[in-house]
């Protein structure tokens, strides 16, 4: 019998991984590859969490990924390519995204319609064309991005304990900006308003307005995307998540779907096991948890008395990030026939990100969207003569709190209709008459399939006070239960595919260290 199909009634594991999202999958694979006995439990019947796909008719839609960050070329591998190819050695193919984005701002006072290329010099030139005289200030912003990247690489190398003198001497611009939001830094750099609008289109990937989002995180993200480009999986995210799952099984890890962990059993501050929705108890001293701190401390830890007060305070001090609505469409005509040349479209009413963010609390069609034409990155992703377009927009999670079941279907259709209209108006391309398949995912949908708290998909907001810098600095102090490691979008690296994947690896490394200390593995 195939060894990988060992059974769930082995009631004792070295490590239990809760949730097969990006973080959980990587964590499970890395620990399994070290020879530890692991089980990965997932409540849904698919791997991936948000990193998935869905089939409607003759189309297969990408669930949530727009652009994978930090993958880069085979010659100059990014962190995620290194993880996938060299560490996990998984069988999944990625293709580059053709351009950074097309930004369309529709408000006549701000009017912008510009296609921004990858490549820092190319990008700067493209902005200069739109906003003459902006070149030097934009260049400085990218230089800051580079310095932040170097500083975080150095801190990583020093395992979170950098030499303060080295930081002060060699990474001063990183230090001086780490406590400030993007607006403060861009003001200091004198970047013209319109150039900022163009430069800040990626704000939606962090979901916090530029008046509040932390500079370290934002500048590093913009620099990384523009320098290294972005990639997407050829067969949708379900390809690489399935590939990681196959790797876990290859190393004798057990993966059980339709299995929801209801309790993490804790005794005197130490993890002792978990209990599933089928009542079974699995003994373990190590849990790697892909669920958020919000869900874990509020619902999973058992008994409740084992949750220290500070854990609740840490959650309540933060703001849960945004959630999304996605309209997936299979069209019965090609992108070429429609005249859509680009892959990624940021379309908004204004680039006043405060105004946009504030409006996301309203239960109406949001004035901002990030839309994709998948065929312009993956030409064969749908049958000949067709194409796939998806429109993503955001909501503050509480916007949907009072929606009644009987209102739900009409509500999501109405919002989707508005998003389609806005896309058509901004691009001048008519898609409505070509819709062969349409599906609309909402916060409810994301809650249903992943169990994420209140449908939130972005983790805690990355303001300066709680950016990845202080999170990483304090990550050891903020472990409240022995044997419990977190991984995923609510974690120390913030949200996003790449952050979650890397966070899974970090959680695995901590767990592996403990297992070595305990003499369980070598």
């Amino acid at each position: 019998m195939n060894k990988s199909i060992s059974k769930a009634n082995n009631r004792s594991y070295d490590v239990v991984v809760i949730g097969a999202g990006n973080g959980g999958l990587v964590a499970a694979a890395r620990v399994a590859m070290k020879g530890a006995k692991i089980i990965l439990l997932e409540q849904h019947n698919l791997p991936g969490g948000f990193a998935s796909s869905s089939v409607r008719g003759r189309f297969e839609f990408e669930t949530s990924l727009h652009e994978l960050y930090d993958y880069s070329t085979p010659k100059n591998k990014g962190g995620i390519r290194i993880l996938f190819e060299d560490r996990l050695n998984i069988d999944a193919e990625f293709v580059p995204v053709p351009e950074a984005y097309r930004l369309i701002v529709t408000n006549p006072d701000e009017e912008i319609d510009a296609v921004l290329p990858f490549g820092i010099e190319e990008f700067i030139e493209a902005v200069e064309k739109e906003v003459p005289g902006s070149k030097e200030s934009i260049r400085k912003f990218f230089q800051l991005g580079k310095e932040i990247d170097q500083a975080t690489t150095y801190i990583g190398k020093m395992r979170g304990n950098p030499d303060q003198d080295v930081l002060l001497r060699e990474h001063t611009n990183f230090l001086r900006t780490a406590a400030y939001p993007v607006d403060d830094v861009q003001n200091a750099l004198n970047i013209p308003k319109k150039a900022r609008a163009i430069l800040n289109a990626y704000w939606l990937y962090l979901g916090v307005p530029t008046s509040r989002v932390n500079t370290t995180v934002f500048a590093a993200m913009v620099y990384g995307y523009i320098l290294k480009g972005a990639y997407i999986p050829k067969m949708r995210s379900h390809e690489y998540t399935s590939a990681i799952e196959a790797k876990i099984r290859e190393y004798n890890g057990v993966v059980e779907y339709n299995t929801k962990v209801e309790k993490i059993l804790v005794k005197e501050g130490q993890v002792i096991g978990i209990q599933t929705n089928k009542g079974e108890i699995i003994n373990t001293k190590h849990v790697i948890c892909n669920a958020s701190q919000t869900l874990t401390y509020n619902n999973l830890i058992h008994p409740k008395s084992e949750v220290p007060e500070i854990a609740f305070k840490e959650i309540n001090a933060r703001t849960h990030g945004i959630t999304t609505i996605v309209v997936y469409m299979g069209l019965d005509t090609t992108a070429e026939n429609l005249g859509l040349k680009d892959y990624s479209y940021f379309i908004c009413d204004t680039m006043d990100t405060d105004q946009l963010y504030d409006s996301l609390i309203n239960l109406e069609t949001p004035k901002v969207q990030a839309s994709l034409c998948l065929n312009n990155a993956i030409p064969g992703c749908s049958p000949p003569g067709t194409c796939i377009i998806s429109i993503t927009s955001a909501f503050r999670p509480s916007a949907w709190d009072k929606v009644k079941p009987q209102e739900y279907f009409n509500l999501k259709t109405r919002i989707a209709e508005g998003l389609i209209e806005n896309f058509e108006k901004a691009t001048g391309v008519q898609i409505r008459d070509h819709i062969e398949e349409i599906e609309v995912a909402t916060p409810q949908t994301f809650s249903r399939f992943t169990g994420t708290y209140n449908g939130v998909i972005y983790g805690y907001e990355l303001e300066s006070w709680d950016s990845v810098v202080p999170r990483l600095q304090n990550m050891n102090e903020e472990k409240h239960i022995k044997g419990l490691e977190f991984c995923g979008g609510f974690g120390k690296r913030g949200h996003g595919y790449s952050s979650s994947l890397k966070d899974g690896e970090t959680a695995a490394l901590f767990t592996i260290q403990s297992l070595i200390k305990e003499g369980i593995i070598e």
Partner: protein
Amino acid sequence: MSQKKEKNLDITIKSTSRDLLAFMKLSANRKKRFEKASNEPIKSDPMNELATSLHPIRQYLVIESIKDETKTTKTFKLTPNKELGTDELAYFRPGQYLSLKVNVNGVEITRPYSIASSPSDVLKGFYELTIRKEENGFLTTYIWDQWKVGTKIESSGPEGFFYFDRLRDSKQIVGIAGGSGITPFRSIAKAIIEGEIDAKMTLLYGSSEEEDIIYYDEFKALEKQFPEKLKIVYILSCEVVSLEGCEQGFITADIIRKYCDVKNSSFFLCGPQIMYNFVEKELMEFNLPARRIRREAFGEVRDVLDLPGFPQEIAEKSFKMIVHMGEQTKEIPALATESLIIAMERAKLAPPSKCRSGECGFCRSLLISGNVYINPISDWRRAADKKFGYIHPCSSYPLSDLEIKVPRKLRN
């Protein structure tokens, strides 16, 4: 970027010392913020509540009344079984189905049945399912024997994609129904009349005999009352037709042309495989874009031997199948002409399943070894599932001895 310029970068936000101090104090200030925050646990999760309400894993129902529709069909009115924890029924989109879970003399199986009542009836506390008794039908024979007023029924939440979507479909619906395939159109018709769906519908409803027509009186009354919204044409394949408003024969291109605004309509098909084969051929004449034709996909394939590419020479064979499901492993027989899901149900493994036509992916399983035949018209697998050896057992048939890993049941 030139080296010179890089060295020159010197950002000051407030002042050099204040900027550095702000960095130095990040952790301490953060700690203060944490300490000041509330220590109250979070108790509510509204999206989880909405998701549970719209998509319950299981609904416990009880039969409130049974109505004889025809000699072979009955309509079951189902209400929530509060004793078992179902307080409210899940809302749905007209055209969706429920997957019933029934224990037939120790064999646990599932079957999809379209909801025949209106979504607004959910708010009144009931669903209706109309079920036709099949000759020698494994489940329906049991239902006719056993289901009485008061019988407890277990069901999934509402499922399926066979519904009107105003962003995609024309406001002129042509429903083409065969036999008991009429049931979802009752729900759609009610929703149209109640204003829940802004469209009008022409129904072309094929039956073999007059006495097989379901909802005849009910639809006649609706049609009379709302002629601008609903039009029904009965097409009977028997030789003599005496009922008012009936056509004799089959749902041909001529019939479709006679009653429908073909170019401006969305066609919704629901019926047996044989009807799809016939009607789809007839529709080809109109050269409609794919988006104008939607087909309900539920139900087992009756005769796998007729499917394209099925190897006839193994028709009589039985194979061995090793099934891993959670903590159990079992070796069971699998007939070449029966889907893997049926083989597992026969062996009392009760694997998860819903649509039973390859579409929903709920039974998605890992094929560890062996080969299967997959019905090409029911292969809705994800591309990567094909690559990594995942199959949908409800539309897969054994071609050799097999070993598969099936997901566990969602609930015991």
